[in-house]
């Protein structure tokens, strides 16, 4: 324990106690389970890993998951920006309720979100029965997966963008307009540029969240192998078949993807901020 403590004088008490509690918890609850996955992957070996992950069904599940997450993220990027802007800049009746509604998907358990979306989009649902005569089906299709992912991750996009809008100076926008910039120029040059790092963070978080989303998706997805089966569900199916190595292979891929994305978001955000600072 003392080897971990660095030279800085420890005047305040409680170091060993808080370190002990933290390490014990992290080992039992985070590190040990993670090592379980690595251990299982290690037993599998690279050849078997590639064989499992390159199977048609796994590739299809990954394709469905990633493509749906990408579209959901795009939707959240656009509407997240609009919502963050409206909530930060405008004062109007009902704003408080709108602000609370943004957090609803975060507070709502994902299984509840899942059956709620089914209730709305299946053929007897309020939206579903409007779309059916038009030949549009959302429930039990790829589009349903997109909606479910967009639902659960919208708070992440909005709440990541909001603080950046608060820091913008409305005077700069006014100045740009006075100098003769038109609406589009002002949007791209004065507004979007300083907001870009936080928008990227927001959509990045929302993408990572969508990749792993399970509860909200499986109810509305239809779960047809090759078509509407997401990677998380495939892991669960392999588990039910007691095929732990295959489950671990898909899980390891999903986890690696999320981690790479998180690191990329972090690096990109730092670079962008540094770039924007030097540009003045």
């Amino acid at each position, binding site marked *: 324990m003392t080897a971990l403590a660095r030279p800085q004088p420890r005047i305040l008490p409680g170091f060993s106690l808080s370190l002990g509690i*933290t390490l014990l918890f992290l080992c039992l609850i*985070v590190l040990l389970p993670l090592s379980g996955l690595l*251990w299982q992957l290690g037993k599998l070996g690279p050849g078997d890993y590639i064989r499992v992950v390159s199977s048609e069904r796994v590739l299809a599940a990954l394709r469905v998951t990633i493509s749906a997450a990408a579209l959901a993220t795009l939707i959240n990027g656009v509407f997240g920006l609009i919502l963050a802007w409206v909530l930060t800049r405008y004062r109007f009746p009902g704003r408080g309720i*709108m602000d609370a509604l943004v957090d609803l998907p975060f507070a709502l358990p994902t299984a509840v979100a899942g059956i709620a979306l089914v209730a709305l989009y299946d053929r007897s649902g*309020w*939206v579903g029965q409007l779309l059916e005569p038009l030949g549009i089906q959302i429930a039990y299709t790829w589009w349903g997966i997109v909606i479910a992912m967009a639902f659960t991750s919208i708070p*992440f996009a909005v709440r990541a963008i909001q603080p950046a809008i608060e820091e913008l100076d409305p005077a700069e926008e006014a100045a740009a307009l006075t100098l003769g910039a038109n609406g589009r120029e002002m949007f791209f040059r004065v507004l979007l540029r300083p907001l870009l790092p936080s928008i990227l963070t927001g959509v990045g978080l929302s993408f990572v969240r969508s990749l792993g989303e399970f509860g909200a998706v499986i109810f509305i997805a239809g779960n047809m192998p090759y078509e509407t089966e997401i990677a998380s569900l495939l892991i*669960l199916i392999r588990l039910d078949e007691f095929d732990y190595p295959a489950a671990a292979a898909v899980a390891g891929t999903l986890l690696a993807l*999320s981690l790479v994305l*998180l690191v990329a978001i972090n690096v990109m955000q730092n670079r962008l901020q540094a770039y924007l600072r030097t540009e003045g």
Partner: protein
Amino acid sequence: MAKPILIALALAFLGVMVLMPVVAIFDRAFADGAGAYLAAIRDPETVAAIRLTVIAALIVVPINIVFGVAAAWLVARYRFWGRRVLLILIELPFAMSPIVAGLCFLLIYGAYGPVGAALEPYGIQLMFNLIGIVLVSLFVTCPFVMREILPVLQVTGEDEERAALTLGANGWQIFRHVVLPNISWGLAYGTVLTMARAMGEFGAVSVVSGAIRGRTMTLPLQIELMYNDYNATGAFAAATVLAGLAFVTLILRGALNRFGPQREAHP
């Protein structure tokens, strides 16, 4: 200029995407009348699921409060080797798919995992029961308390704590009289989030619960079970209970935001 259009767009998006699905739950739950709704809520399996969910949350929340406070204190007040790694590890559950999280627990604590196999001769089983549910819930909720307290500790600095130390207070007295009042709002906020998430977790719990009817089904799992049994009223009635919990969470959050010190908004 663009204000009315943007507000209308925002309202339409939130209305269709967020509000309507939740209203639809209540519509379906009461589709067969209030009598059927009440009968569904009083279903013995549903009642057992509610009980299990509450018991698991009551175990998870205090443990995570202790961990969250300890971890935040450690990271805010001391510089040591591996501090950044520690922070990443605590945040990791946010980035992980709940199914992957559940699988990790099964692989190590399950009957075929090293720890599970070692404990089996002693008759100790960690997965497919309350212990398993508590373990994965601890995992998925572990960042909440720490994340709420850490910024507060970083902002307040350690001057007051050092002053108390100079005046002869011991560690426990410093914690009770100096640290606790400072972090109480963040602690309350983190507790609310932990509670809500612990009760609502679905993916990770479904991997390790064993899904024994009336015994290891938490409320979210019971909803799925009834839904797959074509018991729509039962599933949606149970869902209204959890939706109610979500509303309580939002109201508590709002109240804490309003009356507590200014804080950054993040989900």
